[in-house]
């Protein structure tokens, strides 16, 4: 086999080994089956105890358009995206020239001979691999042979970096749930490729991996699975949804795990129902109907679905019906970039619906929190009898993250204020659906089917008295809206509070939320290295906690870091603390890619200058 190795030594001066601290980009075509290969590498590294994260930058297409999978290997445990990768695995003819162009001097590139590519740079180390031949040698046919090509780069990379074969094998076993028939052809190719590389390649780069112990007890999964599991452990009983990228896998994971965990072992009957609706209007309509009737009900969607849910969201807000809406944000406005990430639905969700509507929004900042907020959202929805939005995004939802293990819910399921027939008996029917008897703005509700002649009330989107009868009286309208605002203020105190890291002596504060947390955490270490101290407040919900104000007050300049065009959170922060607005700065970017620590740190420094 012909092998071509970069012979001129790369101009890298030091050549000290770079261990467990680099990124790998695998450039392929959509639909070429490289996911398995990439996941195998990721998992093998993870099981070697090395912190990793995997991000797929993919097109809105099923087959053929360019896709980049990036694996970050970080001994320090950083999981954010990096601006550049040190290792490129080039498997896509359409992008190879561009992809190589982006490499920094001293980095490396593995490429398939099938690309017909001839390296044009001498400051990068190239390894050409006969991927197609190796795949042919695998004995696999058709589509599967294409997949085997991917295993070829796995093997070569493993050899060059020192990824342990046993971990690759067990990663494949994990993925194929131990099905030898599926695993074997892959391991065979990997072994072959490793052998080949050992014989034919001379390692000229400095990148290697070494076993560590930084992932013990950690799990690896995508955020949408975490969302689904959160709901499963939150006791969800009804799900209605409509397919939309990147939210689809929430519902699919719900289907999968509910079946597994919530089928009655005796009757084999489900203790839940999942319905694929005809669109998002119907999906939320069903959820609202189910929530009204007493189910723990939720839906999941993304941008366009949010727009279509506006009318029902306002209805549920005003009639006070629990509902959980998971919004896995993608890039908008409009259809936008359906396979790219953004945090652009903060304002749209908070104010969804005409008139004076507003909704508590939960903003999990880690995979573990996505799970936690998954069950808490259901509790909050029933407690506050209102729609609760949970906002994650494509980066969280569809990428592979390492995470601490999830903690079992630390409190009982909260079904909120529901009066049973016996309660009504006790109250002698003296109750009002919208009466604020507890001072928290939340009334007591009854469920249809309650066997008491005075249980019934009439739910309507029109003005009503506290007994739910129609009313156009100015005082009654105002009174009801005031109570709703009181309820909203009660929610402000109950939604997850921000998490703060205040650093003494820091003049600068950073406010962030959601999936940008890893990049912010890393950016703070970069800034610290430059001698810039920063405090950090990660907000976890809307309405904003009152502590946001004191955080801002404690700093001279506060940068709100986010991933949208209009600095939406910064706007909300200013609205809540107008008197501090002069200290609040926008640090937002929205190009579809997850923020990087470098961008945050450099932009902040520029603004400071």
């Amino acid at each position, binding site marked *: 086999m012909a092998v071509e190795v970069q012979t001129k030594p790369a101009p890298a001066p030091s050549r000290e080994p770079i261990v467990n601290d680099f990124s790998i980009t695998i450039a392929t075509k959509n639909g070429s089956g490289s996911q398995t290969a990439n996941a195998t590498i990721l998992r093998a590294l993870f099981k070697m105890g090395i912190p990793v994260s995997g991000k797929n930058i993919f097109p809105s297409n099923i087959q053929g358009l360019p896709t980049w999978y990036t694996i970050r290997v970080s001994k320090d445990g950083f999981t954010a995206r990096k601006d550049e990768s040190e290792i490129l695995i080039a498997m896509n003819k359409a992008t190879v020239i561009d992809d190589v162009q982006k490499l920094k001097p001293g980095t490396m590139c593995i490429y398939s001979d099938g690309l017909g590519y001839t390296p044009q740079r001498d400051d990068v180390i190239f390894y050409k691999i006969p991927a197609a031949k190796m795949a042919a040698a695998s004995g696999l046919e058709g589509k599967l042979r294409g997949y085997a090509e991917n295993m070829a780069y796995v093997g070569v990379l493993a050899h060059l970096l020192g990824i342990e074969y046993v971990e690759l094998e067990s990663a494949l076993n994990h993925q194929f749930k131990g099905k030898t028939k599926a695993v074997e052809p892959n391991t065979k190719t990997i072994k072959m490729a490793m052998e080949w590389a050992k014989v034919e390649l001379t390692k000229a780069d400095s990148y290697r991996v070494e076993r560590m112990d930084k992932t013990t007890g950690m799990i690896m999964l995508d955020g949408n699975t975490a969302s689904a599991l959160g709901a499963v452990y939150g006791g969800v009983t009804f799900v209605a949804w409509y397919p939309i990228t990147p939210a689809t896998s929430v519902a699919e994971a719900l289907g999968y795990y509910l079946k597994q965990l919530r089928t009655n072992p005796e009757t084999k009957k*489900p203790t839940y129902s999942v*319905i694929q609706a005809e669109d998002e209007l119907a999906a939320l309509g069903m959820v609202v109907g189910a929530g009204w009737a*007493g189910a723990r009900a939720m839906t999941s969607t993304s941008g366009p679905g949010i727009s279509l849910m506006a009318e029902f969201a306002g*209805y549920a807000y005003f009639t006070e019906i629990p509902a959980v809406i998971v919004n896995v944000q993608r890039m908008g406005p409009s259809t936008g970039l359906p396979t790219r990430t953004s945090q652009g639905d903060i304002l749209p969700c908070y104010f969804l619906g005409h008139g004076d509507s507003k909704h508590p929004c939960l903003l999990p900042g880690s995979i573990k929190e996505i799970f936690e907020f998954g069950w808490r959202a259901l509790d909050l929805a029933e407690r506050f009898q209102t729609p609760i939005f949970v906002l994650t995004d494509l980066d969280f939802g569809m990428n592979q993250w390492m995470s601490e293990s*999830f903690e079992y*819910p630390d409190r009982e399921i909260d079904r909120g204020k529901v009066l049973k027939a016996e309660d009504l008996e006790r109250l002698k029917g003296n109750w009002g659906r919208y009466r604020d008897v507890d001072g928290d703005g939340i009334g007591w509700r009854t469920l*249809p089917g309650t066997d008491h*002649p005075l249980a*019934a009330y009439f739910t309507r989107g029109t003005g009503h008295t506290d007994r739910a009868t129609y009313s156009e009286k100015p005082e009654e309208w105002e009174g009801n809206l005031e109570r709703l605002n009181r309820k909203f203020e009660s929610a402000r105190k109950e939604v997850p509070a921000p998490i703060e890291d205040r650093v003494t002596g820091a003049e600068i504060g950073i406010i962030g939320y959601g999936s940008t947390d890893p990049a912010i955490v890393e950016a703070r270490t970069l800034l610290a290295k430059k001698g810039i101290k920063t405090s950090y407040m990660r907000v976890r919900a809307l309405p904003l906690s009152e502590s946001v104000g004191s955080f801002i007050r404690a700093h001279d300049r506060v940068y709100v870091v986010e991933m949208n065009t209009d600095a939406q959170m910064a706007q909300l922060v200013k609205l809540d603390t107008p008197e501090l607005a002069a200290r609040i700065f926008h640090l937002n970017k929205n190009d579809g890619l997850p923020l990087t620590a470098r961008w945050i740190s450099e932009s902040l420094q520029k603004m400071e200058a």
Partner: protein
Amino acid sequence: MATPTTTQPRGSAKVNRLGLEKSIYKGLDSTLCNGCGHDSISARIIDACWELGIKAEYVAKFSGIGCSSKSPAYFLSRSHGFNSLHGRMPSVATGAMVANNTLTGIGVSGDGDTGSIGFGQFKHAVRRNVPMLYIIENNGVYGLTKGQFSATADVGQELKHAGLNELPPIDLCLEALVADCGFVARAFAGDPKQVTELLKAALSFKGTAVIDIISPCVTFNDKDDSTKSYSWGKTHNERIFDVTFVPSYEEITVDYDEGQAKEVELHDGSKIVLKKVDRSHDPTNRMAAITLMEQAKTNQLFVTGLIYINNDRPDLRDYEDLPETPLAHMPSSVTRPSKESLTKLMQGMM
């Protein structure tokens, strides 16, 4: 408008089999116009539920938006009501009926609510066979917004402000049929006996039972030449059957000539007795039903009665394989999987 039927308590009995007076089945006073067809339908719903001895506490009422959709406030005040959004009653009812499978669902919609903005939801609810009675109070007009054409307006229909309608009407029975509805009926609000019997039958049906009731809007669309007016209805109402509903707990006492009547048995053992009146129609034959509706549409015939019945389709609760305990009442012990299960899951992800 009292409607003596086989199922009503005999003689001077003022209470039904639950021992309840009819007034218990009433709602608030109507705020619709005097003489509105919708009000007589409300009265028939009260009749039917009282006569069947339905426990109102177990009924859930649904509607969209419109004059028609207001009417659930005017019957069964002991039932929970859900006056939802314009055109969105089907989805709301879908969720509620799945959340609690012990509920009986009564939905009231209008021709605008169902035929325009809610057309997609209507068709999909029927396709899913959501277990509920779905009444369309069809007046060929938007009542609440004061007299625009709805999609069921006939070609040539005239309205004061909107002028002349040229677009072909949507026939909601035909639409239901094509969407695989298992219970399709048409009636006239001015024909209390038939409405009541059809309602009773529909309330015992398993799946979506659609009744398209021509219900004149006296304020905006009651001119004699409107096919949705009282006078048109009265002169054109062509009952294909004399419908009698016999609940499971009663004996058939209605008498009829062999060969002139058809008996259809429902899931709960109750029966619908159909005495042929005029044309011959087999309501268990889907193609015959489609043909009949198509003919009625083309020739502006006002045929009423049970158009189609099919007991065999699974309903949404079957599709969803619902357990006995309503999802709404599933205890936490069941809905939250064990701590061990989570630990195991976590281990699988390590």
